[in-house]
């Protein structure tokens, strides 16, 4: 064993001294170690073999480090403060017509813009959160079956990549409480990335975008919620639209509804074609209570829906997977 330790030091010294470190792997002393193996008694062989292997692994790491060092030594430093390279001129920008904004961020800006004009503040949703915001504060008791529907990921620490933008609802309510109690109201949308443990195909993604809205006042009604949503979609599509609802179950609203619009003419819709757009409802008293808002005095409504669907319908995009593909062939269609 001492033998191996001595050799380690010798070989490492050679690695840091040579300009061709990989040659060290061919050293005769290294090969010699293997010829010793059969001469040992069986009880010693295991430990010896392990020590030889460890030496080889450590040596490989040292060689890669030395190779990088040698390679880096050949790197010519730049004057990073200069306006351009020596004997050169100011580089051109890329052609403007190559520049493209992602269709999803473009549509998200559009949606936020309409809600902003309707008097809703916009807040970006978190990409990592805790169980309390994702579920607890939204009236999902521990082990509640409704949690299953969200297919959440978890980190080792128990954090959750949120599966809905409602993960911001408790924060929005808490932040708006003072304004509400001073006689105002809470009106906000939260938007951003959400994550679900789903297999990916043309219509399913583990990563997608949602926009969620929250409105609380002393007099909010379900009728106002439906009016607000209809108004948003009519502005978004620039035409009058019929709406339709059906009962839906979400623990954080009561009553809970699914909301559909008649497919707009611009999208080739005919009367009787419906597009399911989002889930919505009156905020459950327990959710208001979680934010220390008195449900006896205040009522609110909330809704949430996906952004990808709006974009896909608008441009006729056939495959959800294009969005996060980073393919220029896709991106350059959105000049």
């Amino acid at each position, binding site marked *: 064993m001492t033998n191996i330790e001595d050799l380690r030091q010798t070989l490492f010294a050679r690695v840091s001294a040579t300009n061709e470190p990989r040659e060290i792997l061919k050293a005769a002393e290294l090969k010699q170690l293997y010829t010793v193996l059969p001469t040992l008694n069986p009880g010693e062989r295991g430990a010896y073999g392990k020590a030889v292997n460890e030496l080889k692994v450590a040596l490989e790491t040292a060689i890669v480090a030395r190779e990088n060092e040698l390679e*880096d030594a050949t*790197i*010519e*430093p730049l*004057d*990073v*403060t200069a*306006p*351009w*390279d*020596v004997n050169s001129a100011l*580089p051109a920008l*890329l*052609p*403007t017509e*190559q*520049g*493209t*904004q*992602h269709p999803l*961020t473009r549509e998200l800006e559009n949606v*936020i813009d309409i809600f*902003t004009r309707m*008097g809703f*503040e*916009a807040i970006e949703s*978190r*990409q*990592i959160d*805790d169980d309390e915001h994702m579920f607890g504060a939204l009236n999902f008791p521990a*082990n509640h*079956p409704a949690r299953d*529907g969200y297919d959440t*990921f*978890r980190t*080792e620490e128990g*954090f959750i*990549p949120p599966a809905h933008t409602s993960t911001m609802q408790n924060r929005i309510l808490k932040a708006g409480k003072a304004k509400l109690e001073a006689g105002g109201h809470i009106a906000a949308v939260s938007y951003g990335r959400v994550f679900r443990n789903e297999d990916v195909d043309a219509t399913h993604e*583990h990563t997608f975008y949602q926009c969620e809205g929250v409105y609380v006042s002393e007099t909010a*009604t*379900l*009728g*106002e919620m*439906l*009016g*607000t949503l209809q*108004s948003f979609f009519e502005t978004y599509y620039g035409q009058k639209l019929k709406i339709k*609802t*059906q*009962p839906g*179950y979400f623990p954080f609203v*009561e009553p809970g509804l*699914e909301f559909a619009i008649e497919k707009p003419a611009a999208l080739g819709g005919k009367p009787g074609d419906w597009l399911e757009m989002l889930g919505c409802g*009156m905020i459950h008293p327990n959710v208001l209570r979680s934010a220390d808002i008195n449900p006896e005095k205040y*009522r609110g409504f909330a809704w949430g829906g996906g952004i990808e669907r709006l974009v896909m319908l608008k441009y006729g995009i056939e495959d959800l997977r294009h*969005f996060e593909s*980073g*393919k*220029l062939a896709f991106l*350059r269609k959105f000049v």
Partner: protein
Amino acid sequence: MIISVNWLKKFTDIDVSIDELATLIGARLVEIETVIDLGKKYQDVLVAQVVECVELEGSDHLNVTKLDDGGVWQNVERDDNGYVQVVCGAPNVRAGILVAWLPPQSIVPETADDTEPFVLGARQLRGAMSNGMIASARELALFDEHDGILELDTDAAPGTKFADVYELNDYLLDIENKSLTHRPDCFGIIGFAREVAAIQGKPFHTPEWLAQLTPDFGEKQGDIMTPTVTIDDPELSARYQAVVLSGADGAKKTPLYIQTYLARVGVRPINAVVDVTNYLMMLTGQPLHAFDYDKLVKVGGGTADIHVRSGRVGEKLTLLDGRTIELTPEDIVIAAGETAIGLAGAMGGADTEIDESTKNIIIESATFSLYSLRATQMRHGIFSEAITRFTKGQPAELTAPVVADAVRLIAEWAGTTRVSDVADSYPGKRDLPVIELTATQVNATLGTTYSVEQMRETLRNVEFDATASDDTLTVQAPYWRSDIHIAEDVIEEIGRINSYDAITLKLPHRDFTAVRPSDFDELRTAMRKALVRAGASEVLTYSFIHGDVLRKVGQDPADSYRITNSISPDLQYYRQSLTPSLLGLVNANVKNGYDQFALFEMNKVHSKTAELVEDVPAEMHRLGLVLVNKKDQTSAPYYQAKRILDYIAQLLGMELHYKPLGDSNLALSKPFESRRSARVIDVSSGQPLGVIGEYKKSVARGFKLPNYAAGFELLPEAIAIALNHKAPAYTPLSRYPSSERDICFQVAHDVTYQQIIDVTHNVLDTIDISSTVEPVDVYEPADGTTKNITVRLKFTAAERTLTGDEVTDFVARVASEVTAKIDAKIV
């Protein structure tokens, strides 16, 4: 879940068309996935009597039959008696029985949903003409039955339509279970029918037998000891009832009519005992289980001593499906004495299974903790109709009327008698809350104008106990509505049953206050537009990456939050910076023929090295860009990245300084080559904004980057701070001409441009005349020991024209200061 409309009709009138019904249910109860027209399959199937049956000569199993179809079917060859000849190979075919006949030109129901349904004809079979066929249950698409043709238990006349006899002119509603998670009552036909009545505005009356919570179990005959039932922990089971029935005949079947109802909702008929348990489950939502009494007593050591308890560590149980599972303390177990005999609510054990020889049975009617069962379902992979219902939380009151009806029906169809009392352990009895609310409150929440009477009637239609006095409604939900706790739940019922679509739409009345997008959102939009103008393409990439990608750029996976249930190793770690994701896109795009491009992303990154903020990980905004050119260029790519960044800064109104990156341990800087990269700093605030540069050789190799590649990664939050700092920079235009002079410094190779500019600015700051410095040329001769840096000085006085001497003096002051401070020569 499949709901049969004909089955619903047994409990409520339906006086709208199937389309209207589907629309009504969709708007007021639950979304219907599809409506299946069942009757279409059976339109040509006729009841026929076998009047003659003789063996076909030269065949070992075929019979030639003559069928009487009452002369109904046209276009078929008949004998002198008007009978139709059909050859049949089933062992049970014989003269006298009634059968389902599929005439020539009809479609075999089993194939009706195929792309090419099988159309029957008239054909020769071993020399005998056969017209159509006599059908088995399987060919009728009812259930798998290999014993032969289906024998009909009807007294209908030959020629009657098969569908009319067995009520198969039916529509089936396919409903996703998930949509009714909160409504255990709707997992039974009766509960569903109650809703269908109410949404048509009709009152509903639960059948008398089901409304009896302390039912009459009929006469007890014999004196088998009543089983003892012990629920070890009321958390596991709110109620457990058990009763012993004797004289079961395993060969007995339920009437075919019951079998067809089970079959159409997806349950295979087995024998009378099993069919009754399934039938009542489909009807009421309450699952039942039948144990072999004698086997249970044997396993239990001589007595029927039933326990409901937690599973024990190391305990094993062989299930009905033959699997042996290892129980856990989270499972609920039914035990006989000390021995586990069933996984409660999920599946019975093999040791107490009923079979052909079973004479005495125990019927179990119970409820179990839905939370435990949910976990059991996942752990052991059991997805039966029963556990689907148990995991919705069936009410404990329901077990009694259902077990009473089971006793009655099994007696009727399997010939049993009740030989024990009904054991009943009921530790989970709960009182139903009385809810008070006002009509004003209901209308204020929904935005409706319903009268208090209308509200009361709506609730009474679904059998709520509701009374109205002035504005106040006093409501108690029926026992099967354990989801009704608070006023809001009642408001939902009223709104839903009367349809949300009937509500008048309004916009909230409120003060008109303008809302501005946040400064940060506006900044991000501005940066995005600027980068697009600079020719870059925006991308979105996943927030999770492979550990190898982190390692490739020298970031430590231990610093990343790791997903424990990731879909694949590619999506296992939260990313620490955007650059690795962007670099990962380069090669594929180059291979697809894109020679020159820039990709950028604005998104968030996370690292365990950052402190938690309010108990959750800090979220860091980033702007990353990578630019590449497949063709080698003479100039270093760094300068093109810098050009783009300076352009954006200019559009945002910032001036940037670049300082050599040097050694940096930030995750952000890891991909960048320190000698060809810089830290980016805002001049006016001194705020560090990020890193720009070329990539390490190992990184370029790892991501197969072209030689010409560079990029930057910035901190948008720092940019926002820098911009807050910025003062308006406008100075009025001068009416006088400017004077320009170029000055060329020869310096050593390692002197930077910035050093010269800094000294120049120091001098210009002492002169009370507006001035600017711009680069003109950076020349390095071939030997590379020195370089010539030429800059252009421009002077503009606000109030007068400068003289040539003045300008010469300014330039001389700059020249002398630069040559003094830096080892420079003027050339």
